[in-house]
């Protein structure tokens, strides 16, 4: 009946049931896409309780469901998370019950190192902003740890290198916490190991390490990825036991290096940081010990020498006493002699004084004799003195010389007065008048210039033989001679001033 109703349908096309066609599609998909590599960004990632991983890959055109079974998930080298650009290797599988298909992922690799590095840098910045890498959080390593905890793989070169270098420097008790250092579970194991060491009690059956070394050998960025995982970094930052990170080679840097208290470039270097060199310390102790002995010996010797030296400086007490006794003997002898001498000298002086004493009667007679001779001498001397004065007076002839002297003195004076009078007369203005000049006066005032001679003024004109009254007429009419006449009184004025 289908054939009649739908003549356009090809009669020779086989008819499928839904189940048949679904199976056919599944078969085709799974055979044609048995091994594919798909590049995309992870989104909607979730880990189911069963351990299977479910997510989707997307790009700007389409979305593809993906699933990673637990067995494959454990072998992944990276931990998938949203936003990661990855290349998934797997096969396409169809799920007929819902008409859907999905990628069954066997392995995941990062799409490119650039993407991974960007993820790493973003994570580093975020954790740094939280203060996890602050210098202030870093603790000093113990100088000589008793127990060293090592978190690394139990096999391989890393643990051997660490133990070897520890043995060389200073053999210590080492606790190895074996972990995977690569793969899906590595981060969780490393985190558990760091936290497990920190949880050990101070004096428990398992000794608590004094320092931790978290180590891994070199590898690619993906190989070392576990040490970039946030849980590992946080555990390292939170560790109360000082922690040394030693992941990869010198040039490899992982986030745990930022959170560790010290970063060692290699596992061997971590061992060197963890312990000092025993032989050097032994040498230092022995050196200190030898110096202690030497210094103590010298200290005591020096003081012993000083005591001996000072003792030599002390004088002999017996000789001190002998000297003193001798001095005492000497002084007592001199004392005896001195007293005897003193008494003898006093006795002699007394006898001498006694001998010089005379009777008062004799003394009075002697003094009287002395007095008489003095009186006589005085009498004679007075007589002689009077006679000598009289003789000197006579020799002077005083009366006659005095009279002559006075007469001569008077004569001299008279002569000098006469001479001075003449001199005076010759200096007088009257002499000028005698030569024919006249003096014009207004009262007592001598006129000295024409200005003083006012017209009508009454004046006195003095000639050598007397005065005459006159009146000033006025300015000079004749110009020549009277002017000379009036100006002539000048000399008398000057002369007048001489008086």
């Amino acid at each position, binding site marked *: 009946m289908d054939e009649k109703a739908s003549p356009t349908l090809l009669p020779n096309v086989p008819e499928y049931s839904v189940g048949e066609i679904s199976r056919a599609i599944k078969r085709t998909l799974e055979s044609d896409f048995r091994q594919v590599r798909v590049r995309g960004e992870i989104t909607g990632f979730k880990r189911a309780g069963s351990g299977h991983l479910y997510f989707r890959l997307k790009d700007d055109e389409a979305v593809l469901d993906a699933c990673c079974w637990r067995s494959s998930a454990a072998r992944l080298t990276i931990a998938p998370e949203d936003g990661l650009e990855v290349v998934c290797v797997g096969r396409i599988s169809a799920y007929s019950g819902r008409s859907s298909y999905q990628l069954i992922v066997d392995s995941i690799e990062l799409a490119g190192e650039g993407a991974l590095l960007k993820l790493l840098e973003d994570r580093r910045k975020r954790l740094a902003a939280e203060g996890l890498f602050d210098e202030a959080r870093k603790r000093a390593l113990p*100088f000589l740890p008793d127990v060293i905890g090592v978190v690394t793989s139990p096999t391989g070169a890393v643990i051997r290198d660490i133990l070897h270098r520890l043995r060389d420097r200073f053999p210590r008790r080492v606790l*190895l916490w074996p972990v995977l250092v690569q793969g899906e579970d590595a981060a969780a194991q490393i985190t558990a190991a760091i936290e497990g060491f920190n949880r050990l009690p101070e004096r428990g059956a398992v000794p608590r390490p004094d320092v931790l070394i978290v180590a891994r050998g070199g590898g690619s960025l993906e190989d070392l990825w576990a040490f970039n995982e946030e849980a590992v970094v946080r555990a390292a930052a939170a560790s109360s036991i000082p922690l040394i990170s030693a992941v990869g080679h010198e040039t490899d840097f992982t986030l745990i290096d930022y959170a560790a208290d010290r970063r060692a470039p290699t596992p061997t270097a971590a061992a060197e940081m963890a312990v000092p060199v*025993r032989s050097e*310390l032994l040498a230092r102790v022995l050196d*200190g*010990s030898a110096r202690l002995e030497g210094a103590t010996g010298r200290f005591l010797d020096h003081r012993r020498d000083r005591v001996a030296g000072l003792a030599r400086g002390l004088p002999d007490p017996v000789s001190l006493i002998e000297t003193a006794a001798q001095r005492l003997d000497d002084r007592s002898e001199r004392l005896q002699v001195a007293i005897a001498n003193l008494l003898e000298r006093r006795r002699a002086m007394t006898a001498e004084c006694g001998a010089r004493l005379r009777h008062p009667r004799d003394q009075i007679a002697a003094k009287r004799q002395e007095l008489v001779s003095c009186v006589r001498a005085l009498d004679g001397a007075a007589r002689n003195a009077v006679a000598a004065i009289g003789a000197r007076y006579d020799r002077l002839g005083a009366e006659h010389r005095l009279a002559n002297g006075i007469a001569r003195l008077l004569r001299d004076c008279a002569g000098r007065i006469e001479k001075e009078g003449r001199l005076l007369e010759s200096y007088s203005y009257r002499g000028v008048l005698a030569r024919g000049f006249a003096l014009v006066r207004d009262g007592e005032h001598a006129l000295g210039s024409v200005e003083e001679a006012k017209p009508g003024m009454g004046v006195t004109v003095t000639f050598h033989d007397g005065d005459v009254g006159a009146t000033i007429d006025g300015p000079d009419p004749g110009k020549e001679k009277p002017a000379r006449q009036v100006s002539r009184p000048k000399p008398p004025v000057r002369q007048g001033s001489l008086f």
Partner: protein
Amino acid sequence: MAETDAMDSVATMSFEEALAELESIVTKLEQGRITLDEAIGSYERGAALKRHCEGKLREATEKVEKIALGPAGSISTEPMDPA
């Protein structure tokens, strides 16, 4: 009594502290600026510190163990052959 205390305190000192004090005692003695009594006391303490340091250095024995996790999360150690 006080001396015994002082000697006891040496026993609990870290190697680093003991070595540092030994060196400071030696320097003090070498400079000779201490009294005789102090010198005797310092020598005795220096000798104790030296014994302590030597003891710490003698303890240098290698022992390598591996952490073993028990079923209930218990932690024990087992000897490990340091390959």
